[in-house]
């Protein structure tokens, strides 16, 4: 019984399956349009954000960790000192997402009734910082310090063997908060996963206030007024960041192979990798010719595809489906949004191309370290 459950969880957590599932479910959990919202309410998914829903989430997460703790393989990973913060991350992320969504739904209901959001108070009715705020801060601070000291007494900070440049551990992992980036290395070369994407993430995050032209929902929790914003942010945050961190920490073993949570980290596990470049698909498999020796000719298909993706698709969209959006946003904002959006989307696209077609590079010029 337990074994079947474990095997099911192992199976479901394979990136191919878990990523697809999460992505497919996501718009129903954070519905960006009316249509999704109707289904969300019909299936009563919005009940996730009630007290009962929160309790169920809590029980599921805790159940997973309890089950995991009893499993010899998962316990090893779970008990690594520096992995504990990730357990904390899972709980706090779940809790605060739940809490914010709960407040948003309460406010939405109030707004529907024509009332003000619950954060609203008479502007004349102010409180004094001393004592009202100072005391709250003080209590927060004390409680947090108690928590930190107890944690520090109970769990010694991890320390492994002294550094030895000759003995590379397998797997070698970056600190946990960078594991999302390290996970991207599976699908992209370091110049993209390690340099360009982090830069785009930082620039893109700074750009959020400048590209979001929705004036509503400032200063109170509300889902209804900012559905698309919540949806995009939550997808980037929960799936492309937190989910990848969890995969990178718990599920990546020796040689960066995937292991389900209850699988033994077998260093000899072999994964057959015969990934093929787009150029090989086109010239060798498609046209039955040897690869052209001219690099640019060889990669011309890749350049064409990438060019269409980056330069033609946004223009086409602006003329058709996203016409209204283009008019509302103006050319600069629209271009910027497209660059960021298309880069963000390129990750799932590349994942699926890899999983389904074993595609290695769309443009592959190792001679110039230029692989996409």
């Amino acid at each position, binding site marked *: 019984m337990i074994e079947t459950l474990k095997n099911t969880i192992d199976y479901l957590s394979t990136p191919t399956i878990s990523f697809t599932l999460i992505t497919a479910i996501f718009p129903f959990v954070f519905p960006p349009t009316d249509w999704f919202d109707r289904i969300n309410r019909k299936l009563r998914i919005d009940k996730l954000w009630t007290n009962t829903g929160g309790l169920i989430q809590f029980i599921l997460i805790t159940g997973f960790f309890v089950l995991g703790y009893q499993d010899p393989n998962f316990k090893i990973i779970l008990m690594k000192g520096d992995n504990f913060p990730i357990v904390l991350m899972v709980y706090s992320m779940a809790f605060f997402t739940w809490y914010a969504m709960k407040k948003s739904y309460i406010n939405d209901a109030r707004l529907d009734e024509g009332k003000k959001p619950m954060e609203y108070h008479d502007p004349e009715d102010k409180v004094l910082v001393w004592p009202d705020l100072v005391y709250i801060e003080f209590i*927060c601070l004390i409680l947090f310090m108690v928590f930190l000291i107890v944690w520090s007494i109970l769990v010694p900070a991890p320390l492994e063997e*002294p550094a030895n440049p000759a003995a590379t551990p397998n797997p070698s992992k970056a600190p946990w908060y*960078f594991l999302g980036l390290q996970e991207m290395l599976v699908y992209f070369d370091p110049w993209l996963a390690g340099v360009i994407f982090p830069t785009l993430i930082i620039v893109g995050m700074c750009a959020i206030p400048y590209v979001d032209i929705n004036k509503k929902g400032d200063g*109170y929790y509300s889902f209804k007024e900012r559905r698309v914003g919540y949806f995009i942010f939550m997808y980037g945050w929960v799936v492309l960041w937190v989910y990848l961190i969890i995969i990178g920490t718990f599920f990546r073993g020796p040689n960066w192979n995937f292991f389900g949570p209850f699988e033994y980290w077998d260093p000899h596990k072999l994964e057959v990798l015969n990934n093929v470049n787009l150029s090989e698909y086109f010239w060798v498999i498609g046209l039955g010719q040897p690869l052209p020796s001219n690099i640019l000719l060889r990669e011309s298909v890749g350049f064409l595809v990438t060019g269409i993706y980056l330069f033609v698709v946004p223009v086409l969209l602006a003329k058709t489906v996203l016409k209204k959006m283009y008019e509302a946003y103006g050319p600069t904002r629209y271009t910027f949004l497209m660059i960021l959006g298309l880069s963000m989307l390129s990750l799932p696209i590349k994942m699926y191309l890899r999983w389904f077609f074993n595609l290695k590079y769309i443009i592959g010029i190792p001679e110039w370290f230029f692989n996409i």
Partner: protein
Amino acid sequence: MPEDKKKESLLDKVGNSPVWKSIFRSGVPRTRRQRMYAVLGNVFLHLHPARLPRHAVKVGYTWCMGGLSFFLFVVLTITGILLMFYYRPTVEYAFTDIIDLGEQVPLGIMREIHRWGAHCMVLTTWLHMLRVFMTGSYKPPREFNWAVGVILMTLTLLLSFTGYLLPWDQLAIWAVTVGTNMARATPFLGSEGPGASLLAIGDINLIHSASDVRFALLAGRFVGEATLLRFYVLHCIAVPFIAMIFMAVHFWRIRKDGGISGPL
């Protein structure tokens, strides 16, 4: 009048003494007016305005996460200073000093508080960002402060990352090796980055493994003694210094942008 004197509590006596008044400028804050003075007249408290809208002091609204991030920064600074008394950033001593910190130093949990606190600070800044997003508090006029926040978060990650190397154990050098290997692939500036071969004078490549950004980061071709010193200085002086400047801007801008956000 002896009866009046009896009513005056010890706190009032202290509060009305010339010494107290010279330090805090107001007596024990009892009346509304005194309480406002207590905040305005104190360099630490006057980060706050004297009065706030009611929702702004609710933990349910801000989750106290920005405040906790700052508090953790302070805790990490203090514990970090204590650690610096014992720790020597050399390949010879670093690892053993870390062991001594736990075994020889009285109350040897400073390293634990520092390490777990650092992990917590990463989490609290993330959660703070989540809260700011969920309440739409980045909307005008607070756009710039959001950008400052993003930089603060990046700096928090960098602080955590540079500190990771200092214990000089296997975990440390390999995590940092994996992390800094990326720099090799920086376009134009990394020895294995696209376009690096374009930066050449005739046959001489300007960008090679001993002149690229990774070399600048590590002070060498691999993580070694010089890297340890470099990361130590970055971790203890350079990044905190920059973070402090950005925090000052962050806090000042909260006030200048009209205080904490709220519904109109």
